[in-house]
C-alpha cells in the first residue's frame, strides 16, 4: 500500500508516486484527438496535486470521450456506464465513500442529447465531482453525425448542413445553478491543467466544458470545435493559477489591482489575473453576460466562468456517518431485535 510521504524526490511527488503511477492504458482514440490531451492533463493535475490514485473514482457514459477514462489512472476504480447516464451512476457510487474524488468524463453527444436530463439534475444536486464534457460537436464512434453542440450552418461530409442552434454546455450548466462552470480548450494544456486542479478542489459539481477537436470527422478550420479556430479565437477570461491549500501563496507576477483570488472550500486558492476584461467569476449575472457576449462575437471564451464555493454539496444534507458507508460492519447496519419487537407491537 502507498502512504503519503513528505520526502520529495525529483521524479516523485509528495505522496511518493511518479507520473507513471497515474497513467492508464494506451489510448485507442485517433492520433491527435483532443481527448488524449485532456487525459494527459488529468494525469498531470493529479500528480501535481499529490492525489493518491486509489482516492479517485472515474465514471463515463458512452462515446469516444467515455472510452478515455481507461487512458489515465489505471490504479483508480472506474465505471463506464450507459449513454447519457454517467451522472446517476456517479452519484450512487460516490455515496459509498464520500472521501473519494469523482471524475466523470462525458462528451457532447453523451451530455447534450440523451444525457441532458441527468446532466442538469446532477448539477442541481451539486454532487461533489468533476464533470468534464469533451466537446467536439460530432458523434465520432458512429462516424461523424452532428451533435447537439455543433454550430448552425456547419457542413460535414455526408451530413449536409446543420440547421439548428447549438447547445452551450456552460450556459446550460449556469442556468441549472452549477457551482463551478469553466471552459477550456484541449489545445491549451496549461490553462486546462489549472482549471482541472481548481475543479478537483471544488466542493460541489465542477462542470468543465473542454473544446476537444475531432481530427477525423470534424476539424474544419472555420468550426469552433477545431484546433485552428481554437488557437485563433480562444479568448481566456484570465490567466489562471491554482494554489493548493498547503502551499504558501507566493504571488510574484500578479500586480495589485489586476488579480483576483477565489478561496475554495478546502482552503486552496485560484488566482485569476486580469486580461482585457475584469470578469468576476463569483457574479452569476456577469457569467451569463460573458457567455452571451462570446456567443454574439463568435468567440471561444475560456477560463473560470462562474464559481460559488460556499454552497453545501449533495451529501452534506443527509446527515451521514463520517466514515465511508461501504466500510460499515453489520453491527452498525442491522437494527436490534428489540426495535423489531416494538414495530410488531405497533402493528397489532
Amino acid at each position, binding site marked *: 500500500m502507498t502512504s503519503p510521504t513528505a520526502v520529495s524526490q525529483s521524479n516523485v511527488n509528495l505522496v511518493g508516486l511518479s507520473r507513471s503511477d497515474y497513467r492508464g492504458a494506451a489510448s485507442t482514440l485517433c492520433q491527435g484527438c483532443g481527448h488524449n490531451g485532456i487525459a494527459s492533463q488529468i494525469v498531470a493535475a493529479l500528480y501535481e496535486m499529490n492525489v493518491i490514485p486509489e482516492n479517485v*473514482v472515474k465514471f463515463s457514459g458512452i462515446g469516444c470521450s467515455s472510452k478515455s477514462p481507461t487512458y489515465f489512472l489505471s490504479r483508480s*476504480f472506474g465505471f463506464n456506464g450507459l449513454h447519457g447516464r454517467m451522472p446517476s451512476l456517479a*452519484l*450512487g*457510487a460516490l*455515496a459509498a465513500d464520500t472521501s473519494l474524488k469523482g471524475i466523470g468524463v462525458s462528451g457532447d453527444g453523451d451530455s447534450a442529447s440523451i444525457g441532458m436530463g441527468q446532466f442538469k439534475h446532477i448539477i442541481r444536486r451539486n454532487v461533489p465531482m468533476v464533470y468534464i464534457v469533451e466537446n467536439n460537436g460530432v458523434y465520432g464512434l458512429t462516424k461523424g453525425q452532428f451533435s447537439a453542440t455543433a454550430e448552425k450552418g456547419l457542413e460535414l461530409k455526408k451530413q449536409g448542413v446543420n440547421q439548428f442552434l447549438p447547445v452551450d454546455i456552460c450556459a446550460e450548466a449556469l442556468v441549472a445553478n452549477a457551482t463551478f462552470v469553466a471552459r477550456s480548450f484541449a489545445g491549451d494544456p496549461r490553462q486546462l491543467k489549472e482549471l482541472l486542479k481548481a475543479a478537483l478542489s471544488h466542493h460541489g459539481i465542477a462542470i468543465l466544458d473542454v473544446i476537444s477537436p475531432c481530427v477525423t470527422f470534424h476539424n474544419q478550420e472555420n468550426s469552433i470545435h477545431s484546433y485552428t479556430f481554437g488557437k485563433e479565437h480562444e479568448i481566456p477570461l484570465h490567466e489562471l493559477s491554482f494554489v493548493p491549500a498547503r502551499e504558501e501563496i507566493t504571488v510574484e507576477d500578479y500586480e495589485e489591482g489586476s488579480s483576483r483570488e477565489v478561496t475554495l472550500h478546502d482552503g486552496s486558492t485560484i488566482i485569476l489575473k486580469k486580461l482585457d476584461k475584469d470578469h468576476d467569476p463569483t457574479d452569476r449575472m456577469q457569467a451569463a453576460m460573458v457567455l452571451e457576449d462570446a456567443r454574439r462575437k463568435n468567440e471561444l471564451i475560456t477560463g473560470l466562468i462562474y464559481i460559488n464555493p460556499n454552497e453545501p454539496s449533495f451529501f452534506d444534507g443527509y446527515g451521514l456517518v463520517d466514515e465511508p458507508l461501504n466500510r460499515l460492519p453489520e453491527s452498525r447496519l442491522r437494527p436490534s431485535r428489540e426495535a423489531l419487537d416494538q414495530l410488531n407491537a405497533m402493528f397489532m
Partner: protein
Amino acid sequence: MSDESPSHVIGADTKASPIVNDFCITISTVNGSGSATANNLLLRALFRMGIPVSGKNIFPSNIQGLPTWYTIRLSKDGYLARLEKDDIVIAMNPASFSRELDYILPGGVLFYADDIKQEITRTDIITYPMPVKKLIKDAEIAPNMRDYIANMVYVGVVGHMLGISMEELYAALDFHFKGKKKAVDSNFGVIKAAAEWAAANLEKKDPYRVERMSGMTDDCIMADGNTAAALGALFGGLQFSGWYPITPATSLAESLNEYLPVLRKDPETGKLTCIVVQSEDELAAIGMTIGAGWAGLRSMTSTSGPGLSLMSEYLGLAYYAEVPCVIWDVQRVGPSTGLPTRTQQGDITQAYFNGHGDTQFVMLIPGSVSECFEFGWRALDVAERLQTPVIVMSDLDLGMNQWMTKKFEYPDRPMDRGKVLWEKDIEALVNANKEWGRYLDIDGDGIPYRTVAGNKHPRSAYFARGTGHDEFGRYSEEPEVWERVLDRIARKIQNSTKYLPAPVLTSDGKCDIGIIVTGSAEPAVMEAHDQLKQKGIATDVLRIRSIPFHAEVEDFLRDHERVYVVELNRDGQIRQLLMINYPEFATKTVKVAHTDGLALTAKWVREAIEAHEEKVS
C-alpha cells in the same frame, strides 16, 4: 361465505339465523374524501377483536372526485381472498349508488347516507339510512373538517349494528393518529354519537354480526407489503435507495424515509447509515442504485412496470458487469400506463428477460406481507452473494392493501455480504502468489471475487464496463472470451437456487392434480383448493417463491398428471417460463390466467379448474 349463492333469505316475519364473522362489507365513497381512515379503523378494530380480516382498496387514478371502494372480508376460517359480491354495502357516494345495489347478495344489507335521494330498486335487501349531515352538524366540527369526519358516522352506525367493540375502535384510532389525543377524541366523539343514534333509531333486522374470536389472529399483525418491504430492507442493512414516484410503489420508498431516522441512526454517532434519494426519473433511479451497489453499498430501488421498462438497459449492464442491487417491482396493470391503481402479476416474463442480449434475472416472489419483510432483507443477501440484480415481484394488492399477516421475524442469519475483497484480502492473495481478476472464477461456482471503490490497495482497482471484458476486466472483443464470460454468468444464475427461497408445498397426500401459484394469488388458490376438496377434487399446491426454479418445481411437474398454473395476467406468464424451462412437461400444464384489474377470487379459480376437469374426465 361462498360467493355466488344467497347466504340466507329473510321472509317477512322469519328471523334468519345469525351470520357471525363471515361476510363481506364494501364501503363506497368519493376519492379524496378521507374515507381511508374510516375504512382502516373498521378493519383494524375487527382484527383487534381476533377476527381474520382482509381489506382491499379499489381506487381510481385520481386525486379527488371519482368513486372509490373499500372491501373488508371477515372470515372466521381465515380466508383472505377477494369475494365477488357483498353482504353489506355502505353507500356514501351518490354517483355510484345504483351500481352498488347490484353487488349486494339477496338478503344483504345497505347502509346509506340519507341525503342520497335515489330509488332503491332492490326489495330483497335490508336498508338502513344514516343521517350523516345531521349528525355532523350536531357534532360542532369546524366546517373544513366536516367532509373528512363525515365518514366516522358510518363507522359508528355500522359498528353499533354489527357489534364492533367501541374500545377496539378507539384503539384503532389511537394507532392511526399515532396517539394524538385531540384527533383521536374528536373522531371518536362522532363515532360514539353515531352509534348512540343507531341504538336509539335503528331496529336490527339483518343477521350479520361480529364476535370476538381467539386463536385465529395469534402472532399476527396488520400491515401492508410496501411498508413491510421497506422495513425488511432497513433490517437488511440497506444503505442506498434511489427511487422515483410511481403508483403503486411510492409508499415503499416513503416508508423508507419514514422509518430511516427511527431505525438507522448509527448507535455510535447518531448519524445515518443509509441514504434515500428521490431521482429525476427511473433511468436515474436505477443508475444511482447500480452505482451504489457497485461501490459496495446494499442498494435497492422500487418501481412498477413502466419504471421497470425504463430500467431495462441499466439492468442489462448490471447483469453483465455483475453488480448487486435489488429492484422491487410492485406490479400494476399493464401494458402501457394501463390501470395504474389496479393489480396484476403482469411483469413476470419482462423481469425474467429484462434487457437485450442473453440475460436472465433472479426473481423473488413474496406471497404475503410478512414475506415482503423477509424478502426485504433476503434480497439484499442474494444480490450481494450472486453479484447480480435481484427483482422482487410484489404487486399492488400485496403492496398497498392492509393484510393480516404473521409478525415480522427477525433475520435468522447474519448478513451475507458475498465475496468482497478488502485491502488485507488482496494483500494476502498477492503474498500467496495467487491470481485475482475481477471476473475470474476462482471457486468454480461461477461467482468471482469483487473489490469496491475506496479500497486503497494499489492492485484492487478495475474498470467496470458493459462492453466486452475478460476475466481481468480488460476490454476484449475476442470471440472465445465473450462466450466464456457469458456462459459463466449463466452458470452462476442457474446454480443459484441454494441461495433462494424454496417453493412451499401444500399436500393432502399424493394427488394427481397439481396447482402452481405465485405471490398474492395464493389466498384465492388456497381457498379454491379447500372448496375443490369439498367437491371431491383433491389437489396439491406448490407456491413458487423464486426464479430460477428449484428442483422441487420439476419434481412437482413430473409427479402430477395435470398442473394448473394460476396467475393474475392474460398470457399465463409463469406457465410460459415453466414451459421454457421444462419443455418435456409443457403439455401437462394448464393455463388458469385472468386479469381485469382486481385480485383473483376463489370462485373464479375453482370454476376454471372444475371446467377443465370436466373436459378431461
